[in-house]
């Protein structure tokens, strides 16, 4: 009898083992992330649907699309869209142009979603005692990771399907092509879920595992840029090093479209998932693979004010911003010199058309890159504001609020730090672009012009950061409200021309008022007004921070 029971329990162990309870946890994970998932699904599918519809309004005529390749077919612009093969088929259908313009950015956002999803389901739970409670139940050692992975895979496929459906019906978007475009998103999402699943085994904290995930994202984006800039219509070998490159290499909607890169994603993701499952059993619960060192027994002399403490806690964001902007701007700078190349090959009459349209191609490219750099810089400012909120709900702020610190010091000191972080990022971006850009143009006199083009975005960046602080002061529970304006401003600023966004809709964005230097002349008035708006928002935010209840636990 006893042996029979033992036999049965061993059988059971053998059947389910370290994965016992995965199904139940999967339902539980799905339940707790449904708002997150629905929000991202709606955002990504909605964005694709809206831009697809808008693009149809502007470029329904094949000849207008073929004409547009004149500006798009340069290494510089390709680095921001995708390899040249798409451009050869712009005349075939609208869907080709759409896929070329969208696939990098749309999959990039998908990657962000899956990095956050995996971290929040695994390491963030382990960091608190939530996972401890779950592990004490009859579930296997790997079940929580398995459930998170399953959820990511299912969510990836669902997202792919939705994105595919959202572009279906566009000129040239047949079912096969739309599904390929959609499932390329699924492939990128699942690949980044797999990368993050490994990262959470290495890192001790959820912030570190997010940072590792985003570093992989940055590397992928850079490789994609470098690969697309190459003259080879299929892009250089660098594209194969980037999950985004795989998505671009599907060449969705063109006659050359292929599922091979999606299979590559699936194989890589499977290998990474296997690695994560191997690692999770090798490490102790609550620990990463890297052990943490003991700290100092007393605080250094610099750590003596509330500002110094807030800075110490958020300096990682400043470093991340500096490095990201340095990489981003220097890689754009490297292709800046090529923006004008094709212009020389044009007949003189056509060149004039360009010049009349305002500035040279180099200049308009420069204005666009400066804008992209500024968007990236805003991200890091908003991350610092997010830290303030995290300190508050995490309860750590309670110790500070009980000290002789005015509200302007805590949580108020996070505003200047966010401003500094974003401003340093803009500065580093402008300097990197100016240095590398001027050398790629082989003309040092461009240095000042490029630097100015970057720095004039500062007031608009301040407005964005100050607005996030207003949200912290007045609507602290709505954290998403900090990010929504950035997404809107990005779509309006980057895709605004492409989809012919009405002026009234653009007017909301502070970046709309930044002179498009060097295409247009410098106009200081809007910059001064923007700085004043930022100051007013900051004051309003401080008023909110001062008057509201603090929310611990």
């Amino acid at each position, binding site marked *: 009898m006893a042996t029979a029971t033992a036999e049965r329990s061993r059988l059971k162990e053998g059947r389910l083992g370290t994965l016992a309870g995965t199904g139940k946890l999967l339902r539980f994970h799905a339940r707790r992330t449904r708002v997150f998932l629905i929000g991202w699904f709606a955002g990504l599918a909605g964005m694709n649907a809206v831009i697809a519809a808008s693009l149809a309004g502007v470029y329904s005529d094949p000849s207008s699309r073929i004409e547009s390749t004149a500006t798009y077919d340069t290494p510089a612009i390709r680095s921001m869209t995708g390899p040249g093969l798409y451009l050869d088929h712009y005349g075939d259908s609208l869907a080709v142009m759409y896929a070329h313009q969208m696939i990098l950015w749309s999959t990039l956002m998908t990657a962000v979603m899956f990095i956050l999803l995996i971290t929040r389901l695994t390491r963030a739970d382990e*960091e608190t005692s939530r996972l401890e409670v779950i592990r004490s139940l009859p579930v296997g050692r790997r079940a929580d990771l398995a459930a998170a992975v399953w959820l990511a895979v299912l969510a990836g496929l669902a997202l792919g399907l939705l994105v595919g459906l959202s572009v279906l019906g566009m000129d040239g978007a047949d079912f096969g092509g739309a599904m390929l475009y959609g499932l390329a998103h699924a492939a990128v999402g699942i690949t980044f879920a797999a990368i993050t699943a490994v990262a959470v085994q290495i890192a*001790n*904290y959820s912030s570190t595992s997010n940072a590792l995930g985003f570093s992989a994202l940055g590397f992928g984006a850079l490789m994609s840029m470098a690969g697309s800039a190459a003259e080879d219509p299929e892009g250089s070998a660098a594209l194969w090093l980037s999950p985004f490159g795989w998505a671009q290499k599907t060449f969705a909607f063109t006659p050359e479209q292929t599922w091979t890169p999606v299979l590559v994603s699936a194989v890589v993701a499977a290998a990474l998932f296997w690695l994560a499952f191997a690692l999770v059993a090798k490490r102790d619960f609550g620990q990463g693979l890297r052990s*943490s060192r*003991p*700290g*100092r*027994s*007393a*605080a*250094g002399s610099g*750590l*003596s*004010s*509330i500002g110094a*403490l807030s800075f*110490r*806690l958020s300096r990682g964001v400043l470093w991340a911003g500096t490095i990201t902007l340095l990489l981003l701007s220097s890689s754009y700078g490297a292709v800046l010199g090529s923006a004008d190349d094709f212009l020389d090959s044009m007949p003189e009459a056509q060149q004039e058309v360009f010049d009349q349209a305002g500035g040279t191609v180099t200049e308009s490219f420069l204005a666009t890159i400066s804008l992209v750099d500024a968007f990236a810089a805003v991200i890091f400012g908003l991350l610092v504001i997010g830290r303030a909120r995290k300190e508050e709900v*995490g*309860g*750590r702020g*309670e*110790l*500070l*609020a*009980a*000290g*002789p*610190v*005015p*509200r302007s*010091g805590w949580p108020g000191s996070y505003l200047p730090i966010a401003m500094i972080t974003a401003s340093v990022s803009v500065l580093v971006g402008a300097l990197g672009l100016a240095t590398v850009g001027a050398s790629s143009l082989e003309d040092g006199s461009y240095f000042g012009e490029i630097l100015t083009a970057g720095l004039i975005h500062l007031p608009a960046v301040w407005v964005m950061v100050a607005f996030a602080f207003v949200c912290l002061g007045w609507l602290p529970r709505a954290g998403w409200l900090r990010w929504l304006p950035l997404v809107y401003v990005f779509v309006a600023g980057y895709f605004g021309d492409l989809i012919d966004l009405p002026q009234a809709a653009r007017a909301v964005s502070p970046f709309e008022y930044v002179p498009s230097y060097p295409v247009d002349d410098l106009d200081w008035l809007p910059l001064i007004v923007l700085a004043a708006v930022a100051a007013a928002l900051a004051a309003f935010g401080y008023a909110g921070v001062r*008057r*509201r*209840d*603090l929310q*611990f*636990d």
Partner: protein
Amino acid sequence: MTAVIHTEKLVKRFGHVTALDGLDLEVSEGQTHGFLGPNGAGKSTTIRILLGMLRADGGTARLLGSDPWSEAAELHRRIAYVPGDVALWPSLSGGETIDVLGRLRGGIDKSKRDQLLERFDLDPRKKGRSYSKGNRQKVALVAAFASDAELFLLDEPTSGLDPLMAAVFNEVVREVAAEGKTVLLSSHVMSEVEALCEKVSIIRKGLVVETGTLAEMRHFSRSEVRATLKKPIRGLGDHEGVHNLKEDGLELHFQVDSGALDDVLTQLAVAGIASLTCEPPSLEELFLRYYGDELASAGVPNGNGD
């Protein structure tokens, strides 16, 4: 004696929930004041209003003679606070955290800090995240007691401490009390409050239902009497000061109002007493009395109730 803490009709609502419903609390200078109540009664909310973290929806609150909301930062120089659930910065060590909190207050007494670290047996080199609940609490306790605050607001400060450390805590509180400092000790460890506090306020559903010294509170309540008599006694059950009388032959067990003690003991003496114990109510019993109906509705018989 001047009031260090004074609240009148304090009201705080969170959406539909009324956390404080007209709370009156008075703590005088130099007092160690117990603040008793079960979870959710409003203890932490009161303390957070006193710290200017929450804004009261009604009533007044004065702390050291000032308004705790508008003069929060200046007031906090003179206050030390230990939250019930201490969260620390994962990347800072315990020692760094203690130093930062001390410096924000304007400097830290190094020898006092090191001495407290030793007494609480705390390793200051560990990172915030690797401390257990009790050790996190010790970090906050060392930071608070290393300061030279006039007023200590302690919100269930020993909830994660082991009995040894709880004893160290009691000793430290007695020391600051001896220096003439004021302590508000929110707790539901009755023995701790009984050992440390001169005065006690019992809070229930956002209201202070009873406040006074332990002696006063005992005076208004019932003592527990067990007696063995030499001969039977009649009519004791009809005495209006006697409650819950249980007779088992010559053995009696009942509760008696403090005011009726004189009279009842005289009656017993007439019958002749073989043995007698008369216990004043413990704080726990006093406390349970105020929550008798809640206990009853939770299915727990209340020995002290009517």
